[in-house]
Each structure stands twice: as C-alpha cells, then as structure tokens.
C-alpha cells in the first residue's frame, strides 16, 4: 500500500487506469440498464415496478460499500498518517451520499406502489437514513476547521464510529421484520432471486462499482492538485 501512497505515483497510475475503468463503467452500465429495462421479466407479484430494483439495490450496496471504504481509509489515515488516505475518504463521501440519497428516494418510489406508503420508520429504512446523515456529517466535518488536518481527523473518527451502522443496516431486516423484505442475494443458502433477474442486477451492480472507482480516482486526483494549490498559495503568502 505504501507504494500507492506517493501522490506522484498515484496520479501516474490513476491516469493509466482511468480510461479502461471509464470504458468498462460505460459498458457495464449500458448493458445492465438495457437488460434491466428490456430483458429482465416483470415480477409475478410486483409486475413492472420490480425494475426499480435494478437501481435501488445497487445504490444501497454502493452506499454501504463506500462507507466501509471510507472507514478503512480513515483507519489508515489515523494510524499511518497517509495523506492519500484522508483524500480518499474526502473524495468518497459525496459519492456515498449520492448513493444513499438514491437508495432512499428510489426505495420510496418503489414503496409507494408496493407497500402503499412513501416512508415508514422501519429498521432498514431508518438505518439507511442514518447512513445518509453520517455521510452529510462526514462531509461537513471535513470542512469544519480552518486547520484542514483537524477536519480530516474529526471526520475520520466519525467514520470509524459510524461504521457500527453498517451491520445494523445489513441485519435490520432480520432483527426488526416490519416492512422491508429480507436479503435475497447475499444469503448463506445462496440467492433466492431468479437468474433472469439476478444477472441484470449483478451487471448493473458491477457498473455502479466501476463508476465509483472512476469518480473517486478523478476526485482524489483533483484533491491532490488542490493540495498543491494550497501549498503554493501559502508559500506566496509567506513570501509577501
């Protein structure tokens, strides 16, 4: 990992990887959305409304995955003081917040016709809402201090404390069986969803993951340049 913590090397590798990841993202999302809309069958109970699943479920997976990624980056930043780890966390949280937001809104749009309600204080829904707020808090803390390092530290601690919410989201459907359905893909006894729906779902999910890789690499690159600009500005101020 240390080899990638060098900003120059990071930028070089990112530049080399980005075109491939970007093309793969477009391909996976293109195929995934096409299959979700035109190939996957309607559900025998939910009809066409099941197509919301193909954006709702990958968004939810990404919202949780990115939070764990931020928590890992935060731990690395706190323990080994890698400047890149802070920037990776900083670059990730707006993307995670976007996916948490999409999970909530598409879930609401799916819940209205299927459950008869836009919102319910169900365990899964509530814990996902908390995840969204954790992202907002993380983003706010990052910018809350004049001394940037203090902001990064505070945000890293919040990210590590908040990671407790991830297993709560995962198991909420088993602990509080109120409205949201339990897991149908990541189960000990294998997926209970039919392959004709599972494949479009998995391809879309891969597309979402690749999208995250693309955008986070661009954002880290951008943060590195911003850090350079700040250093240059500071040098100017000191010199004048």
């Amino acid at each position: 990992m240390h080899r990638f913590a060098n900003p120059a090397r990071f930028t070089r590798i990112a530049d080399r990887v980005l075109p491939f990841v970007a093309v793969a993202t477009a391909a996976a999302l293109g195929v995934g959305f096409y299959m979700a809309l035109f190939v996957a069958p309607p559900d025998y109970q939910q009809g066409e409304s099941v197509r919301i699943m193909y954006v709702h479920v990958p968004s939810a997976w990404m919202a949780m995955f990115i939070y764990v990624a931020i928590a890992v980056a935060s731990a690395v930043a706190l323990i080994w003081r890698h400047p890149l780890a802070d920037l990776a966390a900083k670059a990730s949280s707006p993307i995670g917040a976007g996916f948490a937001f999409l999970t909530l809104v598409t879930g609401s749009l799916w819940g209205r016709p299927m459950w008869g309600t836009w919102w319910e204080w169900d365990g899964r829904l509530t814990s996902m809402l908390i995840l969204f707020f954790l992202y907002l808090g993380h983003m706010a803390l990052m910018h809350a201090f004049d001394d940037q390092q203090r902001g990064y530290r505070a945000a890293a601690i919040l990210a590590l404390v908040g990671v407790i919410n991830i297993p709560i989201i995962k198991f909420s459907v088993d602990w509080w069986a109120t409205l949201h359905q339990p897991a149908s893909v990541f189960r000990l006894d294998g997926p209970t969803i039919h392959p004709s729906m599972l494949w479009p779902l998995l391809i879309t999910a891969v597309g979402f993951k690749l999208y995250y890789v693309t955008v986070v690499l661009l954002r880290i690159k951008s943060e590195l340049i911003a850090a350079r600009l700040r250093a240059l500005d500071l040098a100017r101020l000191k010199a004048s």
Partner: protein
Amino acid sequence: MGGYAAFVWPSLGLTLVVMLGLLLSTLRQLRARQRRLAALEAEGATRRPRGGSLAAAAPGDAPTVTRSRENERSEEAAS
C-alpha cells in the same frame, strides 16, 4: 410499464441525473484546478525554469514550499 411508469421512470431518471451530475461536477472541478495549477506553473517557469512534475511532491511538504518561496524571491529580484 404496467401502470408503474410514474414510479419506474423517475427512479431510473433520478439515478442517471445524480450519477452524471456527480461525474460532471467532479470533472469541472478537476479541470478548473488543473488550469489554475498550469497557470501558476507557467508563471513560475518563466521566472525560474525548473523541471519536475508539480504533483511530484506530497501536499504541503517542505520542498514544495521552499521551491515556491525561491520562485517568489527570484520574482522580487527580477523586478
């Protein structure tokens, strides 16, 4: 869409809007920062040519600051 069009299309549409919006704002910010850095780099380069990628130094580390300060000094000397 079997009567669910009002729920399915907004879900897909909003997903695309959020994902594209995040990508575009990221690219715009990156371009703006790259432009600013290039401008500063060009400014420094005309005064005191010195090689090396600007991204080569860790953010905020000492050599970076020293080098820029030298740029500033040579700027004063030149004027």
